[in-house]
């Protein structure tokens, strides 16, 4: 199982499609930095195929005023949770 980390918003960049293309069936996707925009209910449809394996970084949500606006299907983790995800994953890939 790999962890994919995405720091771009699906509203501006198509790189999220590259991450999805390269994800295996058990892989997880963590939204960070501007990528957390993808956790909004209106945006989360772009990540339908990885439902249940989609995470977003709490600190980046909070600093953008998006913490209370996240879709319920997204699992919010803080930076300790981020480290834990990297421990659990065999490897981490960054998409930017």
């Amino acid at each position, binding site marked *: 199982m790999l962890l994919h980390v995405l*720091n771009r*918003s699906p*509203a*501006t960049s198509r790189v999220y499609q590259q991450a999805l293309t390269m994800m295996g069936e058990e892989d997880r996707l963590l939204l960070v*930095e*501007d990528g957390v*925009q993808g956790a*909004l*209910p*209106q*945006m989360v449809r772009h990540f339908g195929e990885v439902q249940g394996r989609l995470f977003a970084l709490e*600190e*980046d949500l*909070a*600093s*953008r*005023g*998006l*913490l*209370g*606006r996240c879709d319920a299907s997204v699992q919010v983790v803080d930076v300790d949770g981020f480290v834990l995800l990297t421990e659990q994953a065999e490897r981490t890939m960054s998409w930017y």
Partner: protein
Amino acid sequence: MTSHFSSDLLVILRHGPHGSSLLRDGLDAALVAAAFGQRVSLLFMGEGVMALVDDQQPDPLGQKGTSATIEMLSMYDIEAILVEQTALELFGLTPDELMLPVRLLTGATLSTLPTSHRLVLTF
């Protein structure tokens, strides 16, 4: 419609807070122009509307945000806060979720803005 927005400088802000410094760099240019007595309009396009979302908390590790600056805009007499309506809809946001009152604009009106300002800067 055009003359209503007519002004010296249009600054187009297309980047959200924190991710890059372009939002802040654009705001700084707008504030300086306003301090020099120019009439300034701000247009928040695309991801730029993220700059206006209320309830932005300080970064836990202290990266400086832009929300304090945006709340100060009226002190600089920057009253024309324009927002691309499509962008707001793209993110599923409503005007009452923004930190200050804005003017929503759609396609036809947007395309008249650049010619009704003497200078346009895109950030």
